[in-house]
């Protein structure tokens, strides 16, 4: 493997042993960008290579480990487009809190990655600037909405990345790109500086090559932020080396997420994973979460509703794209009509409708009640089980263009990830197998604040399997296991 294919913790060890220089690591990633980025298109903005190399500080080990940031997390002085025409010329005037925390460790930001416009989508095809391709098969999508971040890690152009997850946008692309992605417990990572999509569901999280890196990166970004009223004032997670001892752990396999609509090859992968867990000493049983089947309609009422309000600020008055108009009102409507892409407009329309007079109770309020039912399903399950598992996605990575025409079909594919956001729980997706060289992700879900346990369970599985060592073949050059 080349340096760009190693994990952060492996690289840090090599650097500390002086077997490799920080500059070599950074150059390896820059090299990846030069070679493969024109085809993969994971980035919307890449920092000047000279600047990236000059950002390396001898006494700051993490400055040697390039990180990619999803382009809806504000990095001061850099563009922040949210993959939308409406913010194409927007330069962030302040740092997101998570970036301030990364800056404290001198992490080296290599660039801003592509996403579905305003994080709305599951394939990164909704980007106004063109889709990102899956490094495992460039005819296929990398997943979404954090497709750029997941692809950048899979292709080695960044050692690790940050994404955001509202209905699966970290986990599903991690699954599609064969990497690890964590959606933390709601409230454990500050949302200040994350462009809001659905405020009660959004969380920022790490996308990494393995579980150890994931735990490390999470430990940097989590913790109370007084600038975010929904951030929790509790003891933050601090990293300690993972052991992976899961003997006796009770794992629940969610029945409803293995039913029809799940690709048989994905199902087989999960069944194989169950055996691996059992060999590790865990106890696995099926569990039913009856209200989970209402997750998708619940989500597709709540998320667009909040989004329709969160996106109202994009009006051409104070920043971003401005269309022409004889009056302010005309200008605002034209700006939004021209500046937003179709999926965003669709969700704004939907959200506006379900909040409007006469429909609020039937839709929005009703959805909030289902949210309660779904959350309580999980609570009951966690009385019997330590963690729950399911596929991260019911399908293998699909081909570009395959689902664009049918929004509803795209929405239905989020069935495995959405319930977790509704309940505010943490969940991690890890590589659990390959089907025709396409990655299949396993989702592990825990009760609130159980990230440490999730890391242990994920780590145990990872160390017992070869999947985390596999790398995509890019441009005919094969390498890896």
């Amino acid at each position, binding site marked *: 493997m080349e340096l760009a294919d190693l994990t952060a913790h492996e690289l840090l060890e090599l650097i500390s042993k002086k077997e490799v220089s920080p500059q070599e690591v950074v150059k390896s990633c820059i090299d990846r960008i030069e070679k493969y980025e024109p085809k993969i298109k994971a980035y919307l903005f890449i920092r000047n290579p000279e600047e990236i190399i000059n950002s390396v500080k001898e006494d700051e080990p993490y400055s040697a480990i390039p990180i990619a940031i999803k382009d809806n*997390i*504000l990095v001061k002085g850099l563009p*922040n487009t*949210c993959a939308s025409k409406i*913010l194409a010329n*927007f330069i962030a*005037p*302040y740092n*997101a809190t998570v970036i301030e925390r990364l800056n404290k460790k001198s992490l080296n930001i290599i660039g801003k990655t592509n996403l579905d416009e305003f994080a709305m989508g599951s394939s990164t095809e909704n980007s106004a600037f063109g889709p990102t391709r899956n490094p495992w098969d460039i005819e296929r999508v990398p997943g979404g909405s954090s497709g750029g971040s997941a692809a950048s890690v899979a292709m080695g152009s960044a050692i690790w990345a940050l994404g955001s997850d509202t209905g699966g946008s970290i986990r599903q692309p991690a699954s599609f790109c064969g990497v690890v992605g964590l959606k933390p417990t709601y409230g454990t990572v500050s*949302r*200040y*500086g*994350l*462009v*809001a999509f*659905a*405020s*009660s569901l959004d969380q920022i999280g790490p996308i990494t090559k393995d579980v150890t890196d994931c735990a490390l990166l999470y430990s940097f970004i989590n913790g109370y932020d*007084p*600038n*975010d*009223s*929904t951030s929790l004032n509790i003891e933050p997670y601090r990293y300690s080396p993972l052991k992976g001892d899961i003997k006796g752990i009770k794992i629940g396999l969610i029945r409803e997420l293995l039913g029809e609509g799940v690709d048989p090859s994905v199902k087989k992968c999960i069944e194989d994973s169950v055996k691996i867990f059992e060999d590790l000493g865990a106890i696995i049983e099926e569990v039913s979460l009856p209200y989970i089947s209402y997750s998708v309609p619940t989500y597709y009422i709540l998320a667009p*509703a*909040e989004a329709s*309000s969160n996106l*109202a*600020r*994009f*009006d051409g*008055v*104070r*920043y971003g794209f401005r269309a022409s108009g004889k009056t*302010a*009102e005309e200008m*605002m409507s034209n700006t939004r009509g021209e500046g937003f892409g179709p999926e965003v407009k669709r969700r704004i329309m939907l959200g*506006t409708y379900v*909040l*409007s*007079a006469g429909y*609020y109770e039937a839709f*929005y309020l009703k959805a909030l009640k289902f949210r309660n039912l779904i959350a309580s399903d999980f609570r009951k399950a966690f009385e019997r089980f330590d963690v729950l598992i399911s596929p991260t996605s019911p399908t293998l990575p699909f081909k570009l263009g395959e689902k664009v025409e049918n929004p509803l079909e795209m929405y239905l594919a989020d069935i495995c990830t959405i319930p977790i956001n509704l309940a505010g729980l943490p969940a991690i997706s890890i590589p659990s197998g390959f089907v025709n060289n396409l990655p299949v992700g396993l989702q592990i879900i825990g009760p609130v604040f159980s990230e440490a346990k999730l890391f242990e369970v994920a780590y145990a599985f990872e160390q017992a399997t070869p999947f985390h060592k596999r790398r995509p073949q890019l441009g005919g050059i094969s390498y890896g296991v």
Partner: protein
Amino acid sequence: MEYEVNIGIEIHAELLTKSKVFCSCPVQFGAPPNTLTCPVCLGLPGALPVLNKKAVEYAILTALALNCKINRNAIFHRKNYFYPDLPKNYQISQYDTPIGIQGYLEIETANGRKRIRIRRVHLEEDTGKLIHSGGRITGSDMSFVDFNRSGVPLLEIVSEPDISSPEEAKEYLINVRDILVFLGVCDGKMEEGSMRCEANVSIRKKGSDKLGTKTELKNINSFRAVERALQYEIERQIEIVSKGKEVVQETRHWDEKNEKTISMRSKEEAHDYRYFPEPDLVPLEIDDAWIENLRSQIPELPEEKYERYKTLGLTPYEAKLLAHDLELSIFFDKAVKLYNNPKNIANWLLVDVTKELKDRNKVITQTLLTPEIMVELLLLIDEGKISGRIAKDILPELIDKGSSPEKIIEERNLTQITDTSALLSVIEQVLKENAGVVEEYRKGKEKSFMFLVGQVMKLTKGKANPKLVNELLKKALG
């Protein structure tokens, strides 16, 4: 009169917190445009609100002072509408759980005391300011936006339509304003926009218990405007209804210059604010301990002061004037502790001091007159050391320089003349020099007496004790 009137008043009061309601930007009047902003109050992507504790406390204090019940579980809602001075195109406000509900305020009316019920008191954020080139909304080439005011905490106080006349409306407004000022939560300056008011007004046939169609009046910028706008609107509605037509429910703009209300009905439809609970904020749980702690901080309000001043011997008129003037009443309370004649202090404050303050366009705390100085002056008069006339003369200096009255009197030899023999010799002189007037008096012209007194005062440079002069002069004239 054939018709009864129902008026409801909605007040928006800017709170005197140091920072904004959802961010730490300073609250300041008159700063250069867009110099008091941050990601939050500019509505930048990624920004989040954090609630100002003081703003909440000011809201609770006001609700308590207005006799409201406090909502123990209060949440914020988003009020969604588009307007260029609203940076997020939604306003964080309160919908069905306002901090205070079911309160009341009692006012004095021509028919005695009346209770105006208060429906709600809630907290929300203010918008930015729009300026139009040319100074008018229509016919401009462009508009300019300043977000300094965006995010300033606003208290919205809504009354029930219990007010029955423009006079009552004005009285209600003044009373609410005074409470806000006495609590220290708002400076109540309508002309500066720190307190804004809108009125809903409808009429109904006397005896009918169904409310008529109401119109909403906006752009009322002073207490006088409230009265005149309402008066105009009531008459307008009466004219419509008496012709057999119907009042249209609409918003009307008060045209101060032409003294009439103008319809603002455009092709806009009724607003659908799509209220939903603000997901970026967590609920407020207001417990008894917090409420009682705040209740104990409520200072004596005008109502209480009024009653107390009456027991001190002030007339209702005097008591009312003093009780509704925050600075003057605080001064008065301090002075009363040092001096045993409240009525005397009140009189001086309300007449002579007030005149001097008006001339200087100042409040008493902006002058150097202290309660101690005031009391010193009054004691000098009581002890006969100076005359009232002289006291009035040196008052301006006390106000502007804060000098000690005793010192002034000593230095300038202003001590009142009470020495009978000294006065007698002056009187003798005056009578000699004004023999003609003395004749007129002896013939029966009463006014001449006052002239002679005046002459004595003149000769003594005002220092003579007037009462003594009167006595001695009468004797001397026989």
